[in-house]
């Protein structure tokens, strides 16, 4: 059984993020965790509020970039730092994908000391969502810091 996990990768002035799992949804969740870990020290935190996010698109890579950017802008608008994410649905409906997710956050005022860096955006640079030979899904891109 493929494990799931995430990491950040060196990328010159910016940072690469990568997540993997058994399904595209798990790989998306893990990539989001990799991004959250750049923004905040999440160790030992519990979400205080839930937020809901839905996006649609035509390809998984585009969906990944949009998903990560939606998380960044939602966090700003809600003045929140995100610590958890669960993808409820990531379906291929005849070439059109739909994604629904629940994101757990903490108001920034209550976790300011844990905040690390601002991520400006998820970029298309090095962006991909692929299934490896072993069956594991791997997603990632470069984020602008």
């Amino acid at each position: 059984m493929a494990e799931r996990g995430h990491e950040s990768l060196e990328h010159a002035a910016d940072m690469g993020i990568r997540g993997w799992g058994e399904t595209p949804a798990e790989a998306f969740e893990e990539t989001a965790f990799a991004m959250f870990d750049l923004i905040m020290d999440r160790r030992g935190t519990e979400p205080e509020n839930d937020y809901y996010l839905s996006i649609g698109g035509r390809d998984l890579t585009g969906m990944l970039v949009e998903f990560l950017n939606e998380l960044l802008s939602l966090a700003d608008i809600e003045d929140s730092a995100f610590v958890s994410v669960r993808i409820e649905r990531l379906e291929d409906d005849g070439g059109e994908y739909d994604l629904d997710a629940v994101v757990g956050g903490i108001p920034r005022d209550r976790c300011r000391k844990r905040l690390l860096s601002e991520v400006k955006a998820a970029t298309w640079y090095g962006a991909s969502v692929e299934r490896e030979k072993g069956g594991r899904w791997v997603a990632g891109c470069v984020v602008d810091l």
Partner: protein
Amino acid sequence: MIHEEKPKAMKVEVRKIGGFLWEIPRSGDMFVPGRIYADDESMRFLLEESRTKQWDALAQVRNVACLPGIVGASMAMADIHPGYGFPIGGVGAFDPGEGVVSIAGVGFDINCGVRSMVIDVPKERVELNRERIADELFQSVPAGMGSTGALRLSVREIDMVLREGAAFALERGYGVEEDLEYIEEGGAVDGADPEAVSPRAKERQLRQVGTLGSGNHYLEVQYLDEIFDGKAAAAFGLSEGGIVVSIHTGSRALGHQIGTDYQSVLRKASQKYGIPLPESELIAAPIQSPEGRRYISAVRAGINCAFANRQAISGLVRDVFKRFFHLSDAQIRTLYEVGHNNLKMETHETPGGRRNLLVHRKGATRAFAAGRDELPARYREVGQPVLVGGTMGTSSFILTGTEQGMADTFGSAVHGAGRIKSRKQALRDYRGGDVIDDLASSGIIVRTHSRKGAAEEAPGAYKDVERVVAIMEGAGVNRRVARLHPMICIKG
């Protein structure tokens, strides 16, 4: 896909064509050659990266040369390092009729730039009070991830920010009227269309006008330690030992969201108009297409947002110094403000005659030579001040443009030292607390919201700014006017 190791070697051919100038000869899909300002050591480093790492600034210079309508050359200044799509330090000018506008040539921090102010207070008084001044600035200027500004705006007011730029902040009581004359473009560009900016981008900005941000953004109190060009320094009102405050920030979340929103718009446009993409991040739209025009007017709104942001912060800084040292407004003067992530329609003399060009500068500063109408009357005889940030521990420079720079680089300059170590490498090599303590022992007071950020921004993570500037001066493109040494550094 992102890999730690580069999957296969990709060869970029370079040849030296001047003391500090290298060329990637035109070949394959390139419309123009690539030109890189570097000394032998920097070029060895770039070639080594090109061979061994996945990221490759030289390949990025070459890729930009493949975009339709590019004029002259795809260029990189001496602070070149890998970005996404364009290299940082990259300059690309495009024909407004046949050319394209590329999102990677502007980046997500639209009109990120530097404002420098000359403060009429003796260096000794600042030295004696540096801890207290650092505390006051740290308390007064919102910095760090998720910080919010004193200006709480409505969407209607954000639309005003996007049209009016620095003047909006001035009307709200930040700064003085004279500031506007010493901001590039007078603190607002024409052609900004708030309608081209998404409601979400505006919503993200409601509480962010007047915030410094994090990462490499900073507020620094500096003293002038050496003058290289007496005539220009006199015109700029600079003297040895004088105090300068520099503010480095940009358009904050609004700029980030414009970049994000137009990624998908320009991606579709690239397909629609059949623009060949040498790499996925170099998405672009014809300048004359509806998508291209709309993106340009959104960028112009982002440019104005950054002008307003720096004006607001300059007002906060002004108030701290006025209060602390009992200064009058006349004793605090804006030296200049200039951006380094920009998209500008400019007139340039080219071998084919005088032309309007859309100039992308990604991590590169406009550096106009003497005589240009765009410059304030006071500086017109010596050229535009170019504000080049160093690191927390090293000097910053004030440069000016040259005639050769106008001809060779469309009037461009470096914007900083340029990163040499990845953030991850910097985190392995330095501890934030040690960085701050080391700087304190050499007399530089750092106040930061993030110790991790201090490690990422350690002086050793950057190229030697002295060398970067020497390359540009050696090539005749920029001229050194003065060097500034840091005393207090406020980081996000």
